[in-house]
């Protein structure tokens, strides 16, 4: 496989940019990009598409690559799409990524909508976690999901595409196995007409392929890392999975599809807890008070004023 000179694409004479370790083939820029776009096309053809899709767009590499892929195949999909960005309010980090998001949407000529934690919840993420030992990533995840839903509803969007890739799926599968939380495997709750349907067109595309796709399209920027990102279980699982993937190519794909197969085969047998209506905000959730209202109730400003 190794060649001291330039390595060529397995499909043409172009210089290889990528080694597909599972199929043991090399791909040039054009074939790598074509493969990614084909996969997005295949995924979207397996879904009943509405008139409009919201692309959850942080401005990072994964969602940027997804937005670009949508632009490339827009003539093949029977719906239009807009970019949806949540500004969590993280000083020294989000300004750069929001600016990048705006510039990319402008360059790709994609309609772009932004919603801010400060407008929706009255506080930025920084303010919500200041002076407390609360886990910023947990709070951010809960509030970002709500913010994205609110923004989607405002725009009449019932389907949201996220940039989650194969690596994310494999990591989540292993994390669910380690935590033993079977509800997470079966997504916890039954389907709701309230929430927009989530789709993941990069579910079969590795993080390296996604990054390479953004890079080869001139859209990769070395943006700052979120200051709240810490070494977590996901980080440990990621390291473990990359090691397995290196020694046993295809491990990540197998891990990701394993959970999907469980869901397909046993999903109908699993008794899901129905949504309850939050007594504070009226949104569907679990328990009397939804997670969003629980998070906001514990905000430092509430403690300060009591």
């Amino acid at each position, binding site marked *: 496989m190794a*060649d001291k000179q330039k390595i060529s694409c397995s499909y043409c004479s172009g210089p290889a940019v990528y080694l597909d370790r599972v199929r043991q083939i090399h791909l040039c820029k054009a074939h790598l990009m074509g493969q990614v776009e084909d996969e997005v096309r295949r995924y979207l053809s397996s879904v009943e598409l509405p008139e409009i899709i919201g692309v959850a767009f942080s401005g990072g590499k994964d969602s940027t690559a997804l937005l670009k892929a949508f632009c490339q195949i827009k003539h093949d999909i029977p719906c239009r799409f807009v970019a949806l960005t949540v500004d969590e309010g993280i000083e020294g980090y989000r300004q750069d990524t929001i600016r990048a998001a705006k510039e990319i949407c402008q360059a790709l000529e994609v309609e772009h909508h932004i919603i801010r934690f400060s407008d929706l919840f009255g506080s930025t993420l920084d303010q919500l976690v200041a002076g407390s030992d609360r886990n910023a990533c947990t709070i951010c995840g809960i509030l970002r999901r709500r913010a994205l839903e609110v923004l989607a509803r405002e725009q009449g969007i019932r389907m949201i595409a996220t940039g989650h890739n194969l690596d994310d799926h494999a990591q989540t599968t292993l994390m669910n196995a380690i935590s033993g939380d079977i509800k997470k495997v079966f997504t916890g709750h039954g389907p709701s007409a309230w929430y927009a349907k989530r789709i993941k067109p990069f579910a079969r595309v590795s993080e390296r392929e996604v990054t390479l796709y953004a890079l080869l399209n001139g859209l990769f920027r070395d943006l700052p890392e979120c200051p709240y*990102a810490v070494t977590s279980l996901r980080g440990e699982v990621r390291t473990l999975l990359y090691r397995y993937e290196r020694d046993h190519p295809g491990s990540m794909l197998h891990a990701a599809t394993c959970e999907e197969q469980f869901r397909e085969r046993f999903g109908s047998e699993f008794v899901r807890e129905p949504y309850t209506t939050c007594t504070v905000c009226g949104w569907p959730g679990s328990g009397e008070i939804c997670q969003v209202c629980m998070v906001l109730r514990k905000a430092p400003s509430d403690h300060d004023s009591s």
Partner: protein
Amino acid sequence: MILVRPDQSEVIIEACGRTVEDILISQDIDPLTVLITKEGEIIPEDTIPDEQDRIRIIQVSHGG
């Protein structure tokens, strides 16, 4: 050859006919967490670099 890390620090390494993948592993860098460029062009990790090459690492996976 010169290996340029994501933090822009540089390491001089004797390639000795090894692939970029083997060189990365010898430097405790998982080849699946990075992409590699040579003279501004992306190259696959099973490339065997020359001793005079300058290989730059682009980080794909971050912490968290």
